[in-house]
């Protein structure tokens, strides 16, 4: 396994002001998954489900409250600074916001040059050549090296971000909603680019999205997150064909169908994820679940395999 994430937890403490009481936000609350070499694992969920936090933890950009991230066999939180720096070359990130993720005061060439020479990826004489090569790989013209980020469109910037990520020749890329900030017309191009690079370079992706339709296109395996925990995990096609968790079903039903004749049956109950779910001991989806029973309120369901490669955390799933 290239990456193994085990029981990852991240709680953010907050203070309640002068009169309120403080507490913790359980952004990630016991997440586990694995990614093999060259494979894509997708995490989906609505905003606030902890998927971005999971991505940052996976790269060691946040330190966890509990749990471990094993990259190439080593727990990255046990590494010292220089070992971690070495590891960084093999795990990179593509960001959601192509407008915010590039330094506005640096030209594209300078940006890539800095990465290449800081990590001594290639000999100094070959840096220029490598930059041109990288730009070509992501579909940009090599004359762009002198330009600043604000001179590019969103899609082009995302390509620059991808070029920067692959410049270190990583094994794993965490792509945090890489297309959700882009025009719909551009999304396909970027997704294709990511797929191409995967084939060419043998990359593994942790692909974070809130859109199941996008996930279906890029990922063979998918985990659905709800309030900091994976509630269902299966191969993508299996998930689409036979969703077992009521939350997954609700997500699938919310994908727009391009046919006005088909009435979208909305199974998603009104409201948002509760903020005080920690108060009750049961299932975190209890308050919104159409199938909830007494047991669901009292006992938290574990993520268990109901079939081969299909895991779900729901008491009702097996019936």
């Amino acid at each position, binding site marked *: 396994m290239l990456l193994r994430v085990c029981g990852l937890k991240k709680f953010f403490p907050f203070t309640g002001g002068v009169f309120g009481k403080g507490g913790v936000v359980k952004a990630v609350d016991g997440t586990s998954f694995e990614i093999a070499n060259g494979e894509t694992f997708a995490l989906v969920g609505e905003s606030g489900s902890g998927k971005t936090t999971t991505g*940052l933890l996976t*790269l060691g*950009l946040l330190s966890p409250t509990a749990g471990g991230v094993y990259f190439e066999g080593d727990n990255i939180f046990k590494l010292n600074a220089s070992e*971690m*720096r070495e590891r*960084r*070359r093999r795990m*990179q*990130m593509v*960001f*959601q*916001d192509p407008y*915010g*993720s*590039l*330094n*506005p*005061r*640096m030209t594209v060439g300078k940006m890539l040059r*800095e*990465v290449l020479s*800081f*990590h001594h990826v290639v000999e100094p004489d070959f840096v220029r050549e490598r930059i041109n090569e990288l730009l070509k790989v992501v579909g940009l013209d090599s004359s762009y090296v002198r330009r600043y980020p604000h001179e590019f469109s969103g899609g082009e910037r995302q390509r620059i*971000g991808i070029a*920067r990520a692959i410049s*270190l020749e990583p094994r794993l890329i965490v792509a945090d909603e890489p297309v959700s900030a882009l025009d719909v017309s551009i999304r396909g191009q970027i997704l294709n680019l990511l797929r191409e690079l995967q084939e060419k370079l043998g990359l593994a992706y942790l692909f974070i999205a809130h859109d199941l339709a996008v996930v279906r296109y890029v990922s063979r395996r998918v985990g659905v997150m709800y309030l900091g925990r994976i509630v269902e995990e299966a191969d993508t096609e299996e998930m689409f064909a036979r969703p077992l968790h009521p939350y997954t079903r609700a997500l699938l039903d919310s994908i727009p169908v391009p046919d006005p004749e088909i009435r979208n049956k909305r199974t998603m109950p009104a409201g948002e994820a509760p903020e005080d779910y920690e108060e009750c001991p049961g299932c975190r989806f209890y308050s919104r679940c159409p199938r909830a029973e007494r047991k669901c309120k009292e006992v938290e369901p574990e993520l268990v395999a109901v079939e081969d490669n299909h895991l779900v955390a729901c008491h009702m799933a097996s019936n």
Partner: protein
Amino acid sequence: MGVWTYFRRNRLAIAGMGIVLLIFLMAAMCPLIVRYDPGDVRVDTKLIGPCGEHPLGTDHLGRDVLSRMLYGARISLSVGFVAVGISIAIGIFVGAIAGYYGRWIDAALMRFVDVMMCFPAFFLILTVIALLGPNIINVMIVIGITSWMGTARLVRAEFLSLKEREFVLATRSLGFTDRRIIFAHILPNALAPVIVSATLGVAGAILLEAGLSFLGFGVQPPSPSWGNILTEGRTYIFDAWWLTLFPGLAILITVLAFNLVGEGLRDALDPRLRGVRG
């Protein structure tokens, strides 16, 4: 977008910049402009009013006031720039460290800033100069280390907001060292308000040096500086008005010009800061 375009529209700022450049040129080329050495004592021509031979008159030792003023400009400008250079360097360093690392480092450094700001700077400087002896190097250093607090706060505020931006997270994911992230990535994006405060700081430093020299704690005679020309002329204020008027005007105009440039830059670089005192 178009800092220069915006700056150019501000006529006062352009006038200020013209004056600053003019003063620079005159200070740089003073040996070509004046006919007399600033230290040239001629008792036979003492206290002559402005005339063709001495456009700004002569002082009580018969020295040419124009010549002394121009050489004094060199000193005033050097003090202004070196002192501000020191203060900006300290301010950037303290502000960047406090803003980037946050938590107790930030709290400790900012309380130190608060403490420094509590001292009445001018009297602190007087004390230090009295202890270390008045010479131009000491003046520069002391002005520098008593005026960095504003810059530190500005830089810290910029860092607090910039460090949350995704491109900073990106540099961390690339494995760069903190030093590289702070100085190569965040700092260039935080420089606009620093440039403004530096320009305004030059004006403040020139004024401070003039004040110190006036009290005899700054540049020591016979070296000319606007402050000590003023203080030497004070005795003759009723007989030789030119000895006090011209250095006074020079200080006024220079400080005003730097302030105009600084405020113009502030408006041009950052519309958010418009109308805020530096």
